[in-house]
């Protein structure tokens, strides 16, 4: 039982992060269904343990890139749910002042998040370049790239893992393998269902862990981060997980067998963690208090988003260039 290595406050903190992610995603889905949000959102319900375990193993100064299914990754890195939800609402008070939306939440200074990305695999080169920047400038930050099983079939994955391996860059490739690239099961388009196996081609270490077990994820990423900080180069960590919803909010996912969801729910990361907490003597009332706090936090975040102003229409052509917007955008 690896759980005994952790005191109850630490275990509660893991649970709290996952509970906040689940609440954020559930409430975002609710807002979307009610027509309060435009565009698309991609929910990480079911994958909470991956984000929570991963970011807990990083230092605040370490850098991450997030995926299009990236709300949980941002929350786990310390994201302010008010500013995140406001961004989903397209409001001026959002992380990107309403210019990015769900797929582009970034926080350069505070969270050291180099942003979510709407291009599948778009963060792979960015995180690797961030690791290169650390080597050139001599800092000791680790860069971590969240990506999915789908992104592992992009050519750029192979290009940058090869370079990171060759140059010993302090980067962690964190694969959230939920088995589906939109509607396509990984095994129908890939000759292995084990993404970690691809590390062999680049002669870097890898491991596959249960992505529904937050402590297993945490420990694997800690090992990878230690290696990176010791100058031992990149690691590929594959977390096996489940995407409870379809690809986007509202996708009924008819392409999946019902066993997929049943299996996922049976291994639910939060349920598992509640059991761990109770086994360790944490009271049910303490767990309920965490859930209630998450609910209150999201009540506030949604109200904040509703009350926040839209961006001024004139902002449509600002931030295209560092300066010179007026001339460069008109011509």
């Amino acid at each position: 039982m690896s759980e005994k290595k952790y005191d109850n406050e630490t275990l509660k903190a893991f649970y709290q992060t996952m509970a906040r992610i689940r609440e954020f995603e559930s409430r975002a889905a609710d807002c979307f269904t009610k027509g309060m949000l435009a565009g698309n959102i991609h929910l990480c319900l079911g994958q909470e343990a991956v984000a929570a375990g991963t970011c807990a193993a990083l230092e605040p100064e370490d850098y991450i890139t997030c995926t299009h299914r990236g709300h949980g990754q941002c929350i786990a890195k310390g994201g302010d749910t008010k500013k995140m939800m406001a961004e989903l609402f397209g409001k001026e008070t959002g992380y990107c002042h309403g210019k990015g939306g769900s797929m582009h939440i970034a926080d350069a200074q505070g969270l050291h998040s180099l942003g979510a990305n709407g291009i599948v695999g778009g963060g792979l080169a960015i995180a690797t370049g961030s690791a290169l920047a650390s080597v050139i400038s001599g800092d000791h930050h680790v860069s971590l790239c969240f990506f999915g099983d789908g992104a592992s079939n992009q050519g750029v994955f192979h290009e940058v893992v090869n370079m990171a391996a060759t140059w010993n860059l302090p980067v962690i490739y964190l694969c959230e393998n939920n088995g589906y690239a939109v509607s396509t099961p990984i095994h129908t388009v890939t000759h292995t269902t084990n993404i970690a196996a691809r590390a062999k081609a680049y002669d870097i270490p890898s491991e596959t862990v249960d992505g529904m077990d937050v402590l297993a994820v945490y420990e694997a990423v800690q090992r990878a981060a230690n290696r990176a900080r010791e100058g031992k180069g990149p690691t590929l960590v594959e977390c096996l997980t489940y995407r409870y919803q379809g690809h986007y909010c509202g996708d009924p996912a008819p392409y999946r067998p019902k066993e997929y969801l049943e299996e996922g729910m049976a291994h639910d990361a939060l349920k598992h963690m509640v059991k761990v907490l109770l086994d360790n003597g944490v009271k049910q009332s303490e767990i309920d208090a965490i859930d209630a706090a998450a609910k209150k936090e999201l009540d506030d975040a949604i109200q904040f988003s509703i009350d926040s102003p839209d961006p001024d229409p004139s902002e449509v052509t600002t931030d295209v260039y560092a300066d010179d917007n007026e001339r460069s955008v008109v011509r």
Partner: protein
Amino acid sequence: MSRMLTFSKAIREGIHEEMVRDDKIFLMGEDVGKFGNVFGVYQGFLEEFGKNRVIDTPISEEGFTGMCVGAAMRGMRPVVELMYNDFAPVAMDPIVNQAAKMRYMSGGQFSIPMVIRAPFGTGRRNAGQHSQCIESVFCHFAGLKVVAPSTAADAKGLIKAAIRDNDPVIFLEHKLLYAKKEEVPEDDYVIPLGKADVKREGKDLTIISWGRQVQFALEAAATLAESGIDVEVLDLRTLVPLDWDAIVASVKKTNNVVVVSEEIKRGSYAGEISAQIAEELFDELDAPVERVCGLNTVSPFSAVLEDRNFPHPEDIVKAVRRVLNK
């Protein structure tokens, strides 16, 4: 004071001065290290600046261009080289979806102070995948700046400005200019982006161009001068941001315009300039704007075929005479 330098040595000198000045600048690309790049621009740089700042890459354009975007987001100032601009389509995602849009999508949080150097241009018998002029593609995407110098002196001043700029800059270098020796000032100077330059003053017609075609335009102007036609040659130098004020001033003076580029004519940036002049300066024009561009075809290998495919000075002369009806 000035001395004679080739276009490639002028670029080399500009980058060298900037790298000495700012240790956040690093170079990345295929064969940029020991080989010093295929056009010799970086000869000696690896020895001087070391392998952390002069990085030989595998043949992975999407990967290393994307890494430069990531490094730029961390405050570095990468100068990435694509061996030919024809390889940019391989790296299109990092250029147009990442570098160009990162500032905007993040609500202004990230700067991408990155230069993408890319040799371009026809006339070197390099066939379909090594001879293109795809500046219009880069100009299309908001967030990118695009530069295409025509002289060694401009190339030096503009590469320094591009490196100091806080936005991604596509820096297009015409391959047939590299070996051209010209006067280059000795002092440390920067030519701001977005400033066109009148390379020849004239009163009868304005030729608007960039890159190697500026040289052809000047040759055409000299020929036309023999028959009393006085042509102004406006070298844009920077395509984005466009120096519209310079275009307005010249068109108001000459009332006639020919736009010259080596691009495929269909969808060309020459067409964009022509459209803007037609929309906004119609009353100033004595005749419709004419474009002199490449054909809507693939760059051929055969010299006989390739010479048909890009404008020559005599094509420009003919176009000027048509517009002026002389």
